[in-house]
């Protein structure tokens, strides 16, 4: 039966690869469709037609689109993401550090947000249709809907400017101890948490309500099992698959959708790198960033599906 599981996973991975190929093509042509190019962006106000043409030629931007796509895609196959047109460094070296930063921020946010969301969602599922449930529902909607730059700025004003408890910037270079690490990350993480906890809690609630109304949960109650044990022993194994799906969607947002938090807290992550590279039309960099986001999204959703396969497979050995 392991072979069957293997085939199922392979099929899922294959499907993701199809999406990825589509994304590779789409990203290239989308970015090629962006008006303006890196030559103009580098020259700025000093862009005269001659200068632009000369710079374009020196950056080999005057080659036909398909030729550039071929050489770029060829490089991708060899694992070469190309050179940045702006800084003349290899794209990988520029992305590498930023990606680590982003993963760090996403990781910490996950550590904080997932348990919170699970707890909130589970509690409101247990106490469904009570005042508590309603309050959680309204509150989570509120924090989701209020723009995150407002949440972030308000947090900085209160905790950094007024109370001087936390630094206003989350500069990686200032982190020397656990204390400064926690101080630097607390506000960005809380802001990001606001954005994703709401949705995750809502979806967790939906999944939980479904499971909690099943007759085997009632059976467990009638066996005298305590509520905590019911949630941990009986409910959790059954909601792993859907919850992983919820989490995958939220986490993929944490990599690509955090531009605002990165810029408010001056955090050098990959999302602001992409916005930057779009602004400077550094196409190889844009493409790499977009590919990373897409790959992360596909990876996470695939992972969620594989977990789902596993959790049902484990029980269907017969």
């Amino acid at each position, binding site marked *: 039966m392991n072979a069957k599981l293997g085939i199922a996973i392979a099929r899922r991975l294959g499907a993701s690869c199809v999406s990825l190929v589509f994304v590779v093509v789409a990203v290239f042509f989308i970015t090629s469709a962006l008006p303006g190019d890196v030559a103009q962006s580098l020259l700025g106000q000093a862009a005269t037609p001659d200068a632009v043409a000369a710079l374009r030629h020196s950056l080999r931007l005057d080659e036909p689109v398909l030729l550039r796509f071929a050489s770029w895609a060829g490089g991708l196959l060899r694992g070469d993401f190309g050179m940045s047109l702006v800084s003349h460094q290899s794209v990988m070296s520029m992305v590498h550090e930023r990606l680590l930063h982003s993963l760090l921020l996403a990781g910490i946010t996950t550590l904080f947000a997932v348990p919170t969301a699970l707890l909130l969602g589970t509690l409101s599922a247990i106490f469904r249709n009570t005042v508590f449930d309603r309050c959680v529902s309204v509150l989570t909607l509120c924090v989701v809907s209020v723009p995150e730059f407002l949440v972030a700025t308000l947090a900085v004003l209160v905790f950094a400017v007024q109370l001087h408890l936390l630094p206003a910037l989350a500069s990686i270079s200032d982190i020397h101890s656990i204390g400064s690490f926690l101080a630097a990350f607390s506000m960005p993480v809380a802001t990001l948490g606001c954005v994703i906890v709401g949705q995750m809690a809502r979806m967790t609630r939906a999944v939980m309500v479904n499971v909690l*109304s099943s007759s*085997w949960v009632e059976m467990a109650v*009638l066996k*005298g099992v305590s509520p905590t044990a019911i949630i941990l022993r*009986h409910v959790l194994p059954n909601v792993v698959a859907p919850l992983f799906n919820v989490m995958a969607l939220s986490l993929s947002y944490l990599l690509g959708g955090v531009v605002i938090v990165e810029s408010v807290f001056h955090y050098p992550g990959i999302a602001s790198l992409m916005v930057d590279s779009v602004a400077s039309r550094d196409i190889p960099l844009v493409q790499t960033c977009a590919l990373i986001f897409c790959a992360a999204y596909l990876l996470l959703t695939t992972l969620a599906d594989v977990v789902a396969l596993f*959790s049902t497979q484990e029980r269907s050995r017969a």
Partner: protein
Amino acid sequence: MSGHSPPPLITVRNLCLTGRRATGPETTIVSNVSFDVAEGEMLALIGESGSGKTSIALALTGYARTGCRIAQGELRVAGHDVRTMGASELRSFRGKTIAYIAQNAGAAFNPALPLMEQVIEPALTHHILPRKEAVDHAIALFEMMALPTPHTIGARYPHECSGGQLQRIMAAMALITEPEVVIFDEPTTALDVTTQIEVLEAFRVAMRQCGFTGVYVTHDLAIVAQMADRAVVLKNGSVQEEGPTGQILNKPTQSYTRQLVAASQPHLRNHDALPPATPLLDVQNLMVGYGAIMPNGHPRHTIVNSVSLPVRAGETLGIIGESGCGKSTLIRAIAGIQPWSGGNMFFAGEPLPPRIEDRTPQQRQHLQLVAQNADLVLNPALSVGATLRRVLTFYNEDASDAALNRVLDMVRLPAAVAGRYPTQLSGGQKQRVNLARALAARPRLVLCDEITAALDTVVAAAILDLMMELKRELGVSWLFVTHDLHALRSVCDHVAVLYAGHCVEFSTASALNAPPRHPYTRKLESSVPEMHPGWLDGVIRQNGLKPGRVAPIPAHGCCYMPRCPVAVADCAQTPPPTWQAPSGALINCHLQAPDLS
């Protein structure tokens, strides 16, 4: 009864339960119910769905479902005052002092945990036994319950066991803490009659050995007769009658009880003579299966194996068999939603294509399917009127209000039902709408897949009555699939007995009562519970329980061989021949008439 009997173990006084939906007003579910259960006694709570019997049973454990609550009354169970207990007291009370066996074991076990984990959980939770001893005890209970491979069955997951096995495992789970009170909530309703006997016997063995006090919730009077000492009859949340089982079954005093008893008695509804006619539907050597196609042109796994059935115009053909025998697959194949790999079908003389898409509009209109579960068949988002009107307009029938009312009247529903949604209807009403949906198309043949299985006895009886009336009025033919032999006998002209995809016997309904009969038919016959208390003992004495693993079906021999009490050597090697008995029955067996009497 007598003056100095010991104090009752369970005392219920003036119990009132209320409940409400998310935002609706509170309604009374159970009002003013009182009864006692003495130690070691088994009390039956009898009632139809909605009578509040399950709510009362749950209330004994101090539990009320979401939206419900115990409004007032006194509940004393084994010295505990259930209503005054706090949350933690209730937790240590449940599972330890009082155990519960749910109706549908398939749903009541956690699909993600191995069975053993769940069985020993009460013992571990209440710190009655350490894990190791709990496992040993569970295995001992499995043995007592006559479960196959008691040592390893605990490692399985719920979906790896059959319904009957799960029900017995659940009983083991209830008994592992040796509780003083066990509640059985319709534990055999979802089971086949043959399995039901095994489970009931297992329960009785457990009762004798463990000596608990029981409350048995059911709607089946025949089971009450086997299991209970005393019975309480409930209707709409209030007690109708209470008394010893024998008195309730034989000398009911209340009209409702009498009605219940009457509905449980088998009686013949189909009095018409068999009209001689050519087959309306002719199924010839049908093969249905799934999996890779084998060299012989058939799929790897066959579900329906070479079945031939003729359905004559205006007659009712019944198909009976236990779950998994292929009767639903057969009917789906006829309906055109299950592809078949071999054989032919003719409808009104015309060949019937396998795929519904390839059938002519007339064929689609004249062949209607009424599926088992009315909840799934009726679109919850459409009103009854909208559903029926769509059928009428689709077949270019008159879709006026008058026509709609005629259709509703056909199934004896008031015109007001047209404006309601499926969720606002009772189970019986839904099944009537389901029938109406098929009948609105003016079909010539209606395929009914277990349409009474999910209904209460009284409601099911009414549906069967309706079927026969419609047969007379409209001249509709019916193909009636069921596992209920009573229902089958009462409405069918011909009967086909299906076992493991084979048609083992085909006869007229009347011939089914007289020998010679196929061994499986006889087994089915004897498994139908009867309303006299000694029935179960008699059956067990006669057949014996056959626990343990059932041998696989031989590749070339008779499909019933592994379970056949009269099997001979030939059965394992050669396929049984089909021969005609004097009664006209076609029997598929190696043995001949004298041996099968």
